[in-house]
């Protein structure tokens, strides 16, 4: 299979969906003139015009709100948040308007908006440009939340998100944009709500997503030497959660670890752990392990950022200890 970058994969998704449906358009800051801060919109304005790839003022509140209004007016907007960290600026629009309109108005109208939110640690961007806040959105009925870890899923989930009639938050990790991986030729859709069993295994189920999947796979290599064979699940969608895939796996492996970059307290890992403690506790032969950032804002200095990150060694030694 051909290999392309994650950024390229999202570009293909946009290109295909914008070609397929004239109502699809993008709005956000600095996407048209320079193709997006991570190159993720490169070439789109040339192909589709700056009417459909629109640079906006620095007005996140209005941008998301206008996305919602444009959807009600018959369009299918993709709204770029620049950095996930700025979602707080538009939080009312995201949770009180976009997420609730369908329900609040008795199902009269759907709100097909995709919100793209580049998140995660990158190059010491510090406290306000590095966050992973996906867990908030897990707690908001009416939203779907996807978070790919590789180019193929990036493409397939973005296409599915654009076609979905519900509001979908699409988190894309900044460190992934330059990642290269195989992506099928032709139409490629990844269903929302279905986790991937990335690696079958026997001894423990590791649930993760986004950039942390890479960290997990490194830990898996390290565990091999110790004869430990984990099964790895890539959530891909955070809401709705694919409980079945998780529970089936834990039924087989009898152990569970969850890893994500966001701070551990109140993170997505808490919900996964709770689901298994509720519905699959009898499967478990060991404490559930959660790996996530310590409870602190993201620091700037290299030494501190390194300390903040969840590392393969942490996952390795945490899991290994279960078997000692």
């Amino acid at each position: 299979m051909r290999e392309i970058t994650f950024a390229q994969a999202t570009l293909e998704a946009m290109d295909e969906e914008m070609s397929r449906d004239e109502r699809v358009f993008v709005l956000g800051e600095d996407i048209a003139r320079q193709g997006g801060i991570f190159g993720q919109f490169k070439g789109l304005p040339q192909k589709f015009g700056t009417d459909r790839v629109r640079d906006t003022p620095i007005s996140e509140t209005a941008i998301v709100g206008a996305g919602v209004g444009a959807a009600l007016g018959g369009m299918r907007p993709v709204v770029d948040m620049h950095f996930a960290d700025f979602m707080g600026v538009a939080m009312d629009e995201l949770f009180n308007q976009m997420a609730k309109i369908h329900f609040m108005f008795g199902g009269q109208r759907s709100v097909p908006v995709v919100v793209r939110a580049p998140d995660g640690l990158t190059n010491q961007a510090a406290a306000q440009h590095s966050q992973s806040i996906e867990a908030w959105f897990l707690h908001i009925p009416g939203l779907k939340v996807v978070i790919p870890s590789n180019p193929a899923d990036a493409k397939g989930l973005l296409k599915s998100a654009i076609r979905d009639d519900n509001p979908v938050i699409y988190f894309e990790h900044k460190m992934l944009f330059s990642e290269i991986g195989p992506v099928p030729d032709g139409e490629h859709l990844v269903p929302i709500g279905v986790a991937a069993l990335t690696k079958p295994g026997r001894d423990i189920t590791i649930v993760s997503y986004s950039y942390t999947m890479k960290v997990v796979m490194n830990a898996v290599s390290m565990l091999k030497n110790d004869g430990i064979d984990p099964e790895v699940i890539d959530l891909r969608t955070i809401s709705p959660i694919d409980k079945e895939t998780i529970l089936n796996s834990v039924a087989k492996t009898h152990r569970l670890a969850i890893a994500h970059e966001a701070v551990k307290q109140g993170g997505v890992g808490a919900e996964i752990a709770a689901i298994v403690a509720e519905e699959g506790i009898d499967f478990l032969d060991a404490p559930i392990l959660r790996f996530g950032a310590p409870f602190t804002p993201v620091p700037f200095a290299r030494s501190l950022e390194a300390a903040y990150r969840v590392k393969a060694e942490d996952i390795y030694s945490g899991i290994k200890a279960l078997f000692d």
Partner: protein
Amino acid sequence: MAEWDEDLLCRFYRTMVTIRFFEQAVEKHFLAGEIPGFVHLYIGEEAIATGVCANLTEDDYIASTHRGHGHCIAKGADVNKMMAELFGRRTGYCKGKGGSMHIADFSIGMLGANGVVGGSLPIAAGAALAISMLDQKRVTVAFFGDGASNRGTFHESANLASVWKLPVIFLCENNQYASTTPYKTTTSVEDIADRAHGYSMPGVAVDGNDVFAVYEAAKAAIERARNGGGPSLLEAKTYRVKGHFVGDPELYRSKEEVEEIFKKRDPISRFEKQVLNEGLLSQKKLDDIKLEAQEVIDNALAFAKASPEPDPSELLSDVYA
């Protein structure tokens, strides 16, 4: 005055009294404990929605506020479905899921009331963006209060609409109060219309209790928007006659203030006097319209009361499309 079309005059009157009677019925049934939640009445402000919406077709959009009943009715909503929604019945606009602050009727371009003050402003700008991208001849009117004019959403939406020349009219209903706070204590400009200056759009203030003045000013702004002239800001000066919500103790103003102003400015009696004085409509015509309107509201009440509550199982539907 002489050049007003009789049908239009009847429409003005019918809309205004329908709103008035609707709100009076709502007040009564709220105080009797039959309507729950929060309810904000439009009494005394009827001329605004009436004058504005008389310029709109069903294809045009409006975005509304927590005080939205009048906007709905003026845009042509079905009062049965409105009343049923207020009573929390499954025959209501939102199947009983929304209530007073969350009524919408997308079939007539009513994009929704909003429980968040200022929440509908960016939505209105977005609907106008859709209009412009789809090359439609529609316009969007965004109703909002004087209080809402101090929210960032107003600023961001006005700026966006201006740089993109969107067909949207920002229609501020300045009723002198934001809940308990008098206008001057929270708002730093004499006329909200003046804020238009900061967005290079026309800003006009009109007497919001004069349906003719509202109609004319809205007409100009709407035609401008419809013809590609971009957004405008219109401020309709009015006065909130009732408490902020039904049940408001109103400790922040005197009964005398309210009564005096209402006596002078009530848009409905003012309209009656004008059309009678000028011989534009007969007393009989006015009485007939009133009777009809009262019947419509009585029917709406009967409809709402006879409607069932939603089944608990409906809680889980309409969360996702």
